[in-house]
């Protein structure tokens, strides 16, 4: 696992473990190079569960990829340090740098899928492009691909996609929640008729994914929908924003990642488009998306994948069991930021799926196929969420064969210039609109790939 070498000191305070930026980066680089070999002896490795992290700490999306990877790695470390692993099975974690590039993601997958005593538990690619590339491979290799808040929206249908798990929210759920919020601000769904809503999207599988759902919503509610692509990485958006200035949409939905988000906010400011009429998806609503724009970002809104920024009971454990031992990967000031928290939630869901699978298959390292069962039967109640220290960050989750999403909740937060403020109550995505699209698109996929859908009624 990627670890920062333990220091001699005991009884750390936050200041003690605060390293210089340079030293931290050197250590992270060294850890990345040495990762995989860092944990234990080969004999002990027989009782370890191997978990790969496909991360990006370099390249244009590193600003968003690094805090997410830190949150994941820190949580896995917490499980090892605090609990001694999952029921005594230690987690063996290795990062692989994808730089958000699909080819590198596939390369990482091929390199890591068979590692550890039972192979990879699951993959979290943090890239919809990589998800598309791996979907068939993971099904063939019987390894789950967990895409929390991203990935293929149609993979919610576990009957067709047994190994895909777009947990907590697909982009179709996000699109529906975004339109619900716009309708609420306008005073009702009937007020959407005749309005103009544009989608400024990253011209990639990620950015294109919400378009079919938004077209359905536009038809139902009668608003004019205009998709506007931005080419990777999104540093040049002048033409898009000049077009927006000319078209004057009532709202601009932002489906960006990395530098595209902050550039969109700056360009919006330069054409005097009101920031409070911009609504980002949950991947366009973290600190690195707004801070580069300074005061110009004030008023900007974004969806929340349930959780937001802030510290909760689990963070106290992270401080105590991980950072106090010098094993944390984040700068201490960034613990509790939006993407760090998302990485933690993502890691926690994976850990709980392994725990669930152990109930059926035994307290030992499990195969991807066994953990797929754990994911598909995972139920997190309010009580369990509280027990895990995530109370206040998320609502209950219930995954099944027919529903690999498990929950469809979201809220909206607004940047006030200094921090994110939650400005809405909980929304639940409208299944009656999403389900027909899921059924239609997944059925086409099944026909194209000659997949016989499972009968979920017979699954246990």
């Amino acid at each position, binding site marked *: 696992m990627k670890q920062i070498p333990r220091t001699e000191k005991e009884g750390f305070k936050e200041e003690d473990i605060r390293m210089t*930026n*340079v030293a931290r*980066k*050197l250590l992270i*680089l060294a850890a990345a190079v040495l990762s995989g070999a860092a944990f234990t002896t080969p004999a002990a490795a027989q009782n370890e569960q191997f978990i790969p992290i496909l991360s990006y*700490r*370099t*390249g*244009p999306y*590193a*600003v968003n990829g*690094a805090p997410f990877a830190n949150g994941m790695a820190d949580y896995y470390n917490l499980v090892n340090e605090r609990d001694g692993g999952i029921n005594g099975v230690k987690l063996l974690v290795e990062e692989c740098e994808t730089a958000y590039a699909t080819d590198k993601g596939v390369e990482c997958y091929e390199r890591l899928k068979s590692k550890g005593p039972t192979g990879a538990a699951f993959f979290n690619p943090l890239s919809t492009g990589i998800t598309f590339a791996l979907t068939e491979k993971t099904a063939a290799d019987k390894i789950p691909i967990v895409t929390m808040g991203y990935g293929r929206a149609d993979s919610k249908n576990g009957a067709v996609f047994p190994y895909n798990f777009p947990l907590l929210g697909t982009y179709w759920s996000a699109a529906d929640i975004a339109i619900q919020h716009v309708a609420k601000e306008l005073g009702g769904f009937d007020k959407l008729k005749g309005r103009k809503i544009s989608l400024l999207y990253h*011209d990639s599988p990620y950015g294109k994914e919400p378009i079919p759902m938004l077209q359905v919503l536009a038809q139902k509610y009668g608003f004019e929908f205009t*998709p*506007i*692509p*931005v*080419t*990777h*990485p*999104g*540093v*040049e958006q*002048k*033409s*898009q924003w*000049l*077009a927006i*200035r*000319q078209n004057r949409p009532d709202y601009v939905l932002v489906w960006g990642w*990395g*530098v595209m988000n*902050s*550039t969109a906010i*700056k360009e919006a*400011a*330069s*054409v*005097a488009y009101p920031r409070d009429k911009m609504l980002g998806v949950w991947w366009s609503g973290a600190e*690195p998306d707004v*801070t*580069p*724009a*300074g005061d*110009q970002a004030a008023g900007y809104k974004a969806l929340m994948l349930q959780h937001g920024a802030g510290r909760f009971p689990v963070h106290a454990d992270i401080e105590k069991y991980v950072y106090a031992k010098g094993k944390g990967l984040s700068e201490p000031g960034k613990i509790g930021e939006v993407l760090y928290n998302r990485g933690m939630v993502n890691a926690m869901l994976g850990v709980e799926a392994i725990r669930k699978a152990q109930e059926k298959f035994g307290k030992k390292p499990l195969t991807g196929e066994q953990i797929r069962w754990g994911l598909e039967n995972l139920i997190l109640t309010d009580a369990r969420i509280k027990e895990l220290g995530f109370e206040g960050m998320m609502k209950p989750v219930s995954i099944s064969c027919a529903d690999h999403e498990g929950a469809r909740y979201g809220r909206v937060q607004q940047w006030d210039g200094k921090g994110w403020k939650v400005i809405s109550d909980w929304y639940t995505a409208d299944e009656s609109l999403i389900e027909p699209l899921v059924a239609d698109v997944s059925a086409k996929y099944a026909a194209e790939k000659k997949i016989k859908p499972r009968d979920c009624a017979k699954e246990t």
Partner: protein
Amino acid sequence: MIALGQFLEVLIGGLMSGVLYSLVALGFVLIFKASGVFNFAQGAMVLLAGLALVRALDLLVAHGVPFWAAIVLGIGFGAAIMAATAWLIERFVIGPLVNQDGLTLFMSTIGVTFVLEGAAEMIFGSDVYPLRLFPTDAWFVFEDLFPGGILVNKLDVWGALIAGILVAGLAIFFQRTKTGRALRAVADDHLAAHSVGIPISWIWFVVWLVAGLVALVAATVWGTKLGVQFSITFLALKALPVLIIGGLTSIPGAIVGGLVVGAGEKIAEVYLGPSIGGGIEYWFPYVLALAVLLVRPQGLFGERIIERI
């Protein structure tokens, strides 16, 4: 009238963006003009210069140094880093390859690119670092002629002014100074220049230093626009069609090429894009560049080289 106003807005915005591309393209031209090396590392040099500047600036301001003094010291630090980089490149990469063919030198600059990108992020960090040296809001001109006026971004105007000053300064440097003329002599023939007593090592250090300083200037403008971050390196890709169109050896060509690329891509994106799915400005400049290559392989302002066999 509205359509005309919108077209003018897109055209002006495009021309201004093009000037910002020219700022990066100038660094390529300088090194090629003076050493015959196509410097693939120019985008990475902009990143390095920007990171050095912004990190020094942040540190100084955090320690209570007045902002104006911090800017001066920060730029000085950035220039020192670029000088050190120029020395290292000349000493360990380009110097040992003297009299090698152009492709070898080009390949070496690809290596330099990756080293600079990695080193810059490792030393100075990989976050987004906001830089606020120029205003980023906009003027709305001709509001009485066109509804809503025509938007002109103040940062773009600053960029154009800076580019103009740079071009004038560089033209004087190349045409009127002894060092500038020596640079041109070295570019024509390394060995011949060396045989008449021109110190090649010194000349190459100077040219990489000047390109580094141009990168620093580009970083001040692009850093203000985007925040200083890794994505700045992608500007090199924007500069390539500028160079093809303007010519690899012409400083004014870099400006004209930038204007053609900027205006072309914006007009194409806004007026052609919606009918073919959008997102075309990434590749449209290369279409323009290919069109220029077909009729003028040396670019609009490049030197026409005729080799007799």
